[in-house]
């Protein structure tokens, strides 16, 4: 009798009967898509903010010089008063070469006459954090008797903000859908497990097991599967995102580039926890529901 060394209990739920593997694959694919959606959404958010911030912190001032001869003097005056007004900013004239370059798309490589009264372009770049007040600069220059126009990129900035928000909304929608699918899959899998293991439950109820005892079995099983599936999916999603972010960013002007950040993985951890919890909760909920139904039936 003593050669019978059964020191560890067998698991009460039949692990072989219901097919854990394909469930985990499904959960992994869902998590993979969710992870990509999260990373894309974070990326779009950050990218949008960066671009907007940068645009809002730079401006181009066009100084309308009275005549080519006075250009040099007026430029110096303007620079001086701008630097006085914005001591933190990086202010520099673009120079005629640069001015002409900017015109090239429209004028071609035409030899422009030297005496063309081209406006003097001055670029202003603020320290991060500050934003530009166009009217204030205009006032400063007008006090010096200078005429200027300011392009503060506000139109572009709005555009980019809207795009980023749209992208984020799309990513969040996908995320919500994937979570919905996760809940449905979990509920489905638990129901399947419960009907496969109906005999086990019947016996457990008969020998006097508490509902919580039975529910715990299914919650643990479903949670473990959720954890495995979402972990695999999230890790693969992270890998895919890293690979995508290593692409040549110029390849796709229309697609926002993924610019990853290590803090993003925090959200992936949240994703894993979320899917695990959803699976467990669906399992617990379904178990209690079925137990109650069985009880009512008899």
């Amino acid at each position, binding site marked *: *009798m003593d050669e*019978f060394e*059964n*020191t*560890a*209990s*067998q698991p*009460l739920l*039949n692990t*072989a*009967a219901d097919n854990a593997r394909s469930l985990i694959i499904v959960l992994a694919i869902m998590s993979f898509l969710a992870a990509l959606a999260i990373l894309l959404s974070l990326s779009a958010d950050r990218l949008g903010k960066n671009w907007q911030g940068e645009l809002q912190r730079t401006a181009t001032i066009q100084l309308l010089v009275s005549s080519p001869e006075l250009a040099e003097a007026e430029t110096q005056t303007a620079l001086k008063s701008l630097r006085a007004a914005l001591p933190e900013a990086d202010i520099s004239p673009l120079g005629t070469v640069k001015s002409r370059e900017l015109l090239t798309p429209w004028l071609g490589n035409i030899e422009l006459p030297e005496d063309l009264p081209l406006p003097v372009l001055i670029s202003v770049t603020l320290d991060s954090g500050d934003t530009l007040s166009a009217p204030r600069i205009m006032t400063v220059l007008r006090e010096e008797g200078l005429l200027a126009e300011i392009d503060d990129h506000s139109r572009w900035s709005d555009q980019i903000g809207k795009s980023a928000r749209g992208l984020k909304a799309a990513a969040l929608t996908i995320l919500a859908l994937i979570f919905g699918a996760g809940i449905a899959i979990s509920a489905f899998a638990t129901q399947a497990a419960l009907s496969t293991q109906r*005999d*086990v439950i*019947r*016996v*457990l*109820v*008969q*020998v*006097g*097991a*508490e*509902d919580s*005892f039975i529910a715990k079995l299914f919650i643990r099983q479903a949670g473990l599967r959720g954890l495995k599936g979402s972990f695999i999916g999230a890790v693969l999603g992270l890998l895919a995102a890293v690979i995508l972010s290593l692409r040549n960013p110029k390849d796709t002007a229309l697609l926002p580039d993924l610019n990853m950040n290590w803090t993003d993985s925090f959200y992936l951890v949240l994703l894993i926890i979320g899917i695990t919890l959803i699976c467990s909760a669906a399992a617990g909920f379904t178990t209690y529901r079925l137990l109650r139904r069985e009880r009512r039936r*008899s």
Partner: protein
Amino acid sequence: MPIINPVSSPTVPPAPEAGAMVDVVRFERVGLRYGRGPEILTDVNMRLARGSFTFLTGSSGAGKSTLLKLCYLTLKQSRGLINLFESDISVMSRAEQQATKQRIGVVLQDFRLIDHLSVFENVALPLRVTGEKREAYRQDVMELLQWVGLGHVMEAMPQTLSGGEQQRAAIARAVISKPDLLIADEPTGNVDPVIGRRLLRLFSEMNRMGTTVLIATHDINLISEFSVDVMRIENGQLFSGLENGRVHG
């Protein structure tokens, strides 16, 4: 030593003749119908005193299994009063019901063994559910399995057992937790007379240690060998003895 050996336990607490005559099961004017069907049981009065041993007979479809289900809390009566261990089951909470079930051992017509658990695990299940430690019950389970003649298939899966072996495993599971009430539905249907008599000896050993026993069976030969109470269901009513004569509460 088998845990049910009466010799090794001379100090069984309240033996039937010792304490007051307490009713383990008490039915008062119990009626039962399934759904909108006819009443299967009508105005059943029944008392099982602590330590009693009772056979329940009746033709196929008479309502034997139904009566037993009421006793082991798998069915609710349509009307009337059922007391188990002196408490009214209709006012029990879910947790109290489950606690009560832990005091009842049940052997069913279909054995309800769990397919993916070994015979040992199946038999140990009631102890595991109450949270007992494996080290504490391991020896008891093994001894009981030896006693019912399943010592050689302890680690086998139920499907690999013969019908009679499965029945014995189911009986072992019912008695392992030394229940206060043992209910068996046709426990000898699948075994030959030799093993049948052996199983009944197990039940009567349990009974001598204080367990109240209620067995439904068709096996008239078996009944005639034992000098115990006999009840009979006929047309939804309960009678005492193999002949006519109504049981009164």
